[in-house]
């Protein structure tokens, strides 16, 4: 029966393993107990997968912001790909953590002015653009980032309210 504990995710075992093992030892062995533990382990894995840890979340955020920056750096005068990326990534992060939607929107948006500062420092010529727009104009990118993040947060809040009935 103790071996069943190995079915659980490592982080879960670190948190609940000791006490869980004591309860497991006191449980009469049998198919019912094995099924109950296997179902609990599956549930713990599903929940762990649905909730990435802070390190993975930060890595994902950096990756998404880098993608926004790359799109902005390689954009011509067409800002739609950058706006679409900000909307989609913002939506995902807002859905994941509605209370921090504003923070994710800001982090994603920051890739745009950073990319433009980089472009200016590197004397990068945007295709089809005669003169680079002033840096302050990049604040407009905050709109799709906030829209996406708060659309995701609204979906999550709406789903929570519907479940509570």
């Amino acid at each position: 029966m103790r071996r069943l504990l190995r079915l659980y995710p490592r982080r879960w075992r670190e948190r609940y393993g000791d006490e869980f093992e004591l309860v497991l030892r006191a449980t009469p062995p049998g198919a019912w107990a094995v099924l109950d533990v296997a179902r609990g382990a599956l549930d713990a894995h599903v929940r762990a997968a649905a909730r990435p840890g802070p390190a993975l979340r930060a890595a994902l955020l950096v990756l998404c912001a880098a993608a926004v920056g790359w799109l902005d750096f390689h954009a011509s005068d067409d800002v739609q790909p950058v706006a679409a990326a900000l909307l989609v990534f913002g939506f995902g992060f807002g859905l994941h953590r509605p209370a921090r939607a504003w923070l994710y929107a800001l982090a994603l948006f920051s890739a745009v002015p950073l990319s433009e500062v980089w472009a200016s420092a590197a004397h990068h010529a945007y295709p089809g653009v005669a003169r680079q727009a002033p840096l302050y104009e990049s604040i407009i990118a905050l709109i799709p980032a906030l829209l996406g993040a708060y659309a995701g947060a609204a979906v999550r809040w709406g789903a929570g309210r519907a479940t509570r009935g």
Partner: protein
Amino acid sequence: MKQGEGIGGLGRFAEPAVLVLVSLAEGPKHGYAIAADVQAVSGVRMGPGTLYGAIARLEERGLIEPVPSEDRRRPYRLTASGATALAGHLAMLERVTAAGRSRLAGA
């Protein structure tokens, strides 16, 4: 963290969670004592997988919290939001029970 989402947000996992909350409403208990109490009060035999699934969800929502202990058997207690959530859920169940009884009586 899902603090403040209450019991309703637990969906199909609400029943074991409510049984754990009812058990802890009496005072702090460790896992084995919760399972024994739940069986005594409701007749429901809660396996370790179900029990710790409920404990993890309730702790994540801030409805229960561990009591500092040197023992491997970590006790848990109800938080203030846990007590409020349980009271609200029991009031809802009372309304449903009353409606069901009254409808059965009239059938």
